[in-house]
């Protein structure tokens, strides 16, 4: 498992909040650090990927465990 500098719990949040919170959280970490995001909104999957891409961040890995979507994003 990747070493995350910060873990964001966005479980139970509906669109657009997972991405809004992720954006805020990534502003609080250093470039090159990893943010781990937990979400349950299915739409978060494609939106987080598209958002990361547009901001130049790298979506390192994603996983699904017991209906929780997990993402590891490396800040640009």
């Amino acid at each position: 498992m990747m070493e995350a500098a910060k873990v964001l719990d966005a479980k139970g949040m509906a669109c657009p909040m997972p991405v809004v919170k992720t954006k805020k959280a990534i502003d609080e970490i250093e470039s090159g650090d990893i943010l781990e995001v937990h979400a349950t909104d299915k739409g978060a999957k494609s939106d987080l990927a598209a958002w990361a891409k547009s901001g130049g961040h790298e979506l390192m890995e994603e996983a699904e465990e017991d209906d929780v979507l997990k993402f590891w994003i490396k800040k640009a």
Partner: protein
Amino acid sequence: MSQSITTGQLARRVVNREKTLILDVRNTDEFDDWKIEGDSIEVMNEPYFNLIDGVGPVSEKLNKDQEIIIVCAKGNSSKMVAELMEEEGFTNVYDLEGGMKAWSEHLEPVKLADLDGGGSLYQFVRLGKGCLSYMVVSENEAAVIDANRMTNIYERFAEEKGATIKHSIDTHLHADHISGGRQLANNTGGTYHLPPKDAGEVTFDYASLEEGSGITVGSTTVKVQPIYSPGHTVGSTSLIIDNQYLLTGDILFVKSIGRPDLAGKADDWVGDLRDTLYNRYKELSDDLVVLPAHYSFVEELTDDGSVKARLGDLYQRNSGLQVDDENEFRKMVTENLPPQPNEYENIRQTNMGKMNPEDEKQREMEIGPNRCAVHG
């Protein structure tokens, strides 16, 4: 606080061809896959996450006083963007209630005709997905053909007309959308009709929809006459209503023809498709009005918002009916096919009763455009 517009209000703008500007704030992949279309609709895309820190990316392109309808996947992000835009001085922004999810489920009823036998025929246009379904109302009875999943819409409509839904008919086992046919019959105590050759694996009881055994709606003579017309599926059956209207299911559309590959049997069924389109239908009257189960392009909507065409005219101008060479036809309907509909295999399983996904899952399975046609 921003204002909202309902899917019904937007649907009437599409049908009435009122000029409308839509800002779709879903991510670009989703937008490219499927969006709101109409002759009078201009639509632009800017994902909501590019607007959180400021609406600059759109305010450069738009006038602050112009009317803008903001659309997202489910109706929350569009509200957020509408409010952000208002803070930046936009004065005429609306958000579409329920987003594309609700748009996908909206059915716009259009009256097609009063029938000779007494009663009326209605078309339900699902603008968000290009699905067409039908209701025959005669006296206090109704029949619904190719019902979509939102059965309450048909039930409410029949109730307003003072009719009970006695028959729910599917022209074939659908692969692009979840049928409401069986549910509707269950809800109203009616009979669910399905072609037996498409029902080999179904897990429920049904009445066989077969050529030679007609269905009567009301005590008068609105006849629903099945015509076996295989090709899209092996069971596909068309219906002639009141000797005037030919419901073609997914065999023949206004600008295209059905695809034979959605059950994995393109090579087996292409001969059937050819025979139906080039022989069986040809024997029918040119004056029949073709009413398909889908349309692909908004240009197919006529002035009253319905989708229909005279059979004889389609033999003149539908490109799928102009291929004299059989090999060329075979090539056209088996090669260069559009991508298959999202989740089409799970949708088929659901329509056979082998899967019972929850409502939310059913909604997700249907997201996206229908892709049942081959464009010649």
